[in-house]
């Protein structure tokens, strides 16, 4: 009996991951949201209260922005949730992705002229490459930087790694911030940023900055690709190696997991997601601005991963949606409503720091595994707790 059960388990483990269930649910939710934003919102017959409610509490731009955060949070989840490495400089990849879009999809480099499958008029100066190709370029550039920064530092202890990434996350945006004149070369246009990006070509029509509904489809598709990659990698050889390293690095290396290569892979995959998110964000806001890539973004993304549940794809998506919405729409809208109701002047958006700080602390203290926990991680994260209970009672009193 036991052998048969074991064989059955083995067979189940060998079977390819079934993506049908989640794909259907995902598609259904995306279709409903698309219908609401593309058809219901512009519809004349929509009752005014519902229209106002949607515009105040769930405007289309905030949903799209949340999707960008979802893409990046899923990438960070691979580094933090799967491989257990703390990355505090994720914003660097976001910035590199953003500037890839800025460089290759605008008139910014006026001195050069190159058109790669782009839909803009061929008379335009600058580099114009198709959005879908830029996604690949941005991802590749980020993967390259991920390996460059990861290779020398991943040997270090985990807390040192957090700092090196933090330093990296400070240097890259500062380079873009000061990059107006590097030996006479204008790399990033400094604080003015790069504006007016090319529309996204889809074959049917070109999506400009205000095509929220159609761009929603593009972002949903990108997020779906990230979900697919996350789930597929998680079940595969690489994913199991990541989990092994997360749970016990020493044991994993004894079992023959190549530590450096595996960690580097997680770093590179995470970086690719950051790059894709950066390109998507640049098209979402139709520009790249150096001062937007600050340390808070790294921490926002970390808070999303921690809130939703490290290592769990659905948890991370939920966390990213909740916090991105709160940050972009929830707090300002709540503030407006509250202030007009009670005649006060409370500045709600200034509470974001408090909110994100509390999310990080309270989740780690009381629900370390997140809103939607990953079963294996719960065991690991509460490893030390049993020891605590064994301590003599008078220790706890103090």
């Amino acid at each position, binding site marked *: 009996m036991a052998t048969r059960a074991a064989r059955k388990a083995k067979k189940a483990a060998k079977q390819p991951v079934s993506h049908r269930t989640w794909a259907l649910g995902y598609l259904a939710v995306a279709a409903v949201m698309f219908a609401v934003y593309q058809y219901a919102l512009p519809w004349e017959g929509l009752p005014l209260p519902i229209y106002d409610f949607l515009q105040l509490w769930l405007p289309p731009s905030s949903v799209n922005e949340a999707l960008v955060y979802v893409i990046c949070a899923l990438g960070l989840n691979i580094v933090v949730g799967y491989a257990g490495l703390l990355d505090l400089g994720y914003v660097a990849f976001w910035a590199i992705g953003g500037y890839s879009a800025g460089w290759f999809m605008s008139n910014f480099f006026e001195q050069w002229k190159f058109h790669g499958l782009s839909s803009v008029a061929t008379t335009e100066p600058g580099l114009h490459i198709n959005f879908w190709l830029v996604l690949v370029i941005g991802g590749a550039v980020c993967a390259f930087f991920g390996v460059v920064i990861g290779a020398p530092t991943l040997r270090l202890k985990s807390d*040192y790694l957090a*700092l090196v990434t933090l*330093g990296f996350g*400070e240097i890259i945006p500062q380079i873009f911030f000061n990059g107006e004149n590097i030996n006479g070369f204008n790399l990033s246009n400094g604080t003015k940023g790069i504006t007016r990006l090319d529309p996204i070509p889809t074959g049917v029509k070109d999506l400009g900055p205000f095509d929220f509904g159609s761009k929603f489809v593009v972002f949903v598709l990108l997020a779906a690709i990230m979900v697919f990659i996350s789930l597929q990698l998680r079940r595969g050889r690489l994913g199991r190696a990541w989990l092994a390293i997360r749970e016990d690095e020493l044991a994993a290396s004894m079992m023959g997991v190549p530590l450096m290569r595996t960690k580097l892979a997680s770093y590179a995959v995470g970086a690719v997601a950051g790059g894709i998110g950066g390109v998507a964000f640049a098209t979402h806001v139709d520009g790249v601005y150096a001062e937007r890539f600050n340390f808070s973004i790294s921490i926002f993304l970390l*808070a999303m991963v921690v809130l939703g549940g490290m290592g769990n794809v659905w948890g991370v998506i939920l966390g990213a949606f909740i916090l991105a919405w709160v940050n972009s729409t929830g707090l300002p809208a709540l503030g407006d409503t509250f202030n007009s109701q009670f005649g006060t002047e409370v500045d709600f958006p200034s*509470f974001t*720091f408090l909110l994100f*700080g509390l999310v990080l602390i309270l989740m780690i*203290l009381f629900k370390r595994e997140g809103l939607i926990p990953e079963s294996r991680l719960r065991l690991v994260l509460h*490893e030390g707790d049993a020891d605590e209970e064994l301590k003599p009672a008078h220790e706890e009193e103090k």
Partner: protein
Amino acid sequence: MTQAAAVEKVAVRQYKGTPGQIRRRRIELTAGLVLGALVMVWIVANLINSPTQFAQVFILGFRNGLLYALIALGYTLVYGIIELINFAHGDLFMLGTLFSSYFITVWFGQETSNLAGWLTFFAALIAAMAFCGGLNILIERFAYRRLRRAPKIAPLITAVGVSFILQFIGIKWNGSTPRNWPKVLPQSEFTVLGVHIAWNTVILLLVAAPLLLLLSWVVTKTRQGKAMRATAQDQDAARLMGIDVNRTISFTFAIGGALAGAAGLLYQQTTGTTNYNLGFQLGLIAFTSAVLGGIGNLNGAVLGAVLIGIIQGLNDGLPIGLGQKWSQTVVFTILILIMVFKPAGLLGKSTTEKV
């Protein structure tokens, strides 16, 4: 002595690690020498180019280095005892600057340098140290203590969260833009060989140096210091020896916080400005200093901080240099280079990872 033992002795002396380790050491040495040589060339070029200005920015950098040392010690003390990078420490320093500003200017109404101003300054020094020390004890008690045995990523994330909450307090207290304050320290300066030295630099040195000596005395000579070193070495063994580990860790946080408070007052009085994100910038610089000197090593933190202060001062102020807008980049590049080539720092012992 038998022949076998002699052979063994020779063999032991000749073993210098695996080929990989030898190659690594060689790369580290070469990289270190090349970098050192480049820095020397840069410094000498500037020294010949403009000696007075060099001395001027050197002194300014040294002053900032002392401030960084006071902050860096807080990082290194806490890391030494519980192996936690206390991300919130820089923000504690920021609250120290705000507390000092309010104490001197708003609560006691001192705006000029006179006797009352001096008295308030010293009262503010004690008050700011008590404020930040107490706050740090509370942070340890409520945020970090429960996580002492949790996986390492958990307290790190919590520290980032605490840092955000302190920044929030900073925004609410200070406002989101930098604020200027009157200074009660004398604003005059004196000239030695054509080099202008501000009096507040001297005062900063006179306040910071005794604090550093006091700390060194507490850690090496007192009973409490002995308990700290024991706890840092092995918590469980220390507990078995009858040391109250929780109290010792609280004490360590209190000292670190008090030094941050003193640094806060000195910073506020020498520059006259406060800003809510000051803690993030200076905290990272101070942390880099602690790492440069060898984290966990008190002398190393001071040495590293002074070095970083001087390098930053030279870079910011000298005619041949990258200038102030690349200041952060220079410091973080140093951080990354040390992490990569010499994680143990200048004075730290290289330790193998405990199993």
